[in-house]
């Protein structure tokens, strides 16, 4: 089991969710986040002063998937979240030790 964390542009959320559903991934956690990589912020004016706002709105998706679905999931995200511009985001993958369904204590990949 592996965890996929993807930080994407908020405008791409619907496309990414649809693409993931198509490859069989239904369960995920979606967080509203702020941040930036190399993408610069934007300037705002307030009373004659210019301010740089570099905490930009992002969406972070987290999902734990069985090993055999990881590459399909990554391809789905890449295809749907990419615009080709700086600020598209990043995907991180890490190993998961255990997954447990709270309702019935089911464990392992079948709990996903």
């Amino acid at each position, binding site marked *: 089991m592996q965890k996929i964390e993807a930080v994407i542009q908020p405008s791409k959320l619907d496309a990414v969710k649809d693409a993931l559903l198509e490859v069989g991934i239904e369960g995920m956690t979606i967080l509203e986040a702020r941040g930036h990589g190399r993408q610069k912020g934007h300037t*705002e*004016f*307030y*009373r*004659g*002063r210019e*301010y*740089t*706002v570099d905490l930009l709105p992002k969406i972070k998706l987290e999902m734990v998937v069985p090993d055999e679905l990881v590459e399909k999931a990554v391809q789905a995200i890449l295809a749907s979240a990419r615009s080709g511009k700086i600020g598209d985001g990043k995907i991180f993958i890490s190993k998961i030790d255990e997954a447990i369904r709270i309702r019935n204590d089911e464990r392992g990949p079948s709990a996903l």
Partner: protein
Amino acid sequence: MHPRIVKLLLALGFCTSSVFPALAQTPPATDQIAKLQAQVAAAQSGADNAWMLTSAALVLMMTGPGLALFYAGLVRKKNVLATMMQSFAMMAIITVLWAVVSYSLAFDSGTSFIGGLHHVFLRGVGLTPDPDYSSTLPLQTYMIYQLMFAIITPALVTGAFAERMKFSAMALFLILWSICVYSPMAHMVWGKGGLLNAALGGRFPTLDFAGGTVVHITSGVSALICALYLGKRVGYPKEAMPPHSVVISIIGACLLWVGWFGFNAGSALSSGTLATSAFVNTHFGAAGAALSWMLAEWIRNGKPSALGAISGAVAGLVAITPAAGFVQPMSAIIIGLLAGVVCYFMVIKVKNWFGYDDSLDAFGVHGAGGTLGAILTGVFASSTINPIFRDAHGNVLPSGAIEGNWHQVLNQLVGISLAWIISIVGTLILLKLVDLTVGLRVTREQEIEGLDLSQHGEEGYDFAS
């Protein structure tokens, strides 16, 4: 009166006057005319009173929630409640203070600088008119209307020290300020025997229809002194402190605009055509200034901001305040256009030149806008709108410079200067006094934590709950 009763009375009258000639002192027709006159007067009073009570409500709305929202949107989220609370607290505190003593100090006769104490606890302030102020309004209507002005003026000052002043210090300071700065200024411009009272023969008649000097210059200049005395907020000017909700500020500004009809048109103290003039001028002044501030920003920054547009509108409303019942409508538009540009310049350039932290631009908009408006009142005042100056025979005299009376601009400068002086001196002394007794500023930690938590133990927004 029912026709049958009239006939009966007439018949009785004839009988009485023919049998007892000595009893026929007053012919019935004169009785009727006297009754009719009383009814007409009552109708006029009714119309005036209706408008004035409505206006008083509108002016209170300007403070709560108008100003409360306008200011609150401009501060950081952690200070939103504390900022609103400052305005709201004035609604409660100043009301009691007014009833106890400060109405009397403003509107009782006394000296040319301050009223007496005959009306403490509102003694003698009943439901009959005081002809010096209005021959149609119950004096209590006048008192409650003026109270709403006394409430909003200190609330305006809070803009200067937002996000860093202790609630207790603010309350104490503004109570003293209301007594020592507001009441005297109100007395001088509007009170019986006031030095600057144009309507009641003051020595230096200053044309101030609704409070350009009394409300806006005093609050704005006092705000500047407060900002200088208290010092800058932690992190200012390096740290960006943008408004947490321009949405809330827009709502507040619109409530201010609508409420201002009560502030200016209500200052006509009647429901007649002078109220119409003031209403129209108020609206035109706001529109002109919103437009010119937007254009100025558009040219300078390439984009007109919502915050700029509403700030412009408020600046226009401030500037038209002294002029509202004295100028022609087109003059009001001009005053608005000028106010938008001048106040824009004040808040983006002058503030940064001098480096003072007037958090919510109370001085830039109210102090500067009020001063500009008071001067322009002397320029644009027209006796065709309001024949305020008359000679010994009752003939109308010119009002402002556009009618040839350039001397009025000088009189305006006297009133303006007095407002500046009393504000600067009064505020400095009172700040020092409160600083020595209670202490003015919150601690650095409290300021960083935010006033909502440190002063009120509350959070403004708890969307997670």
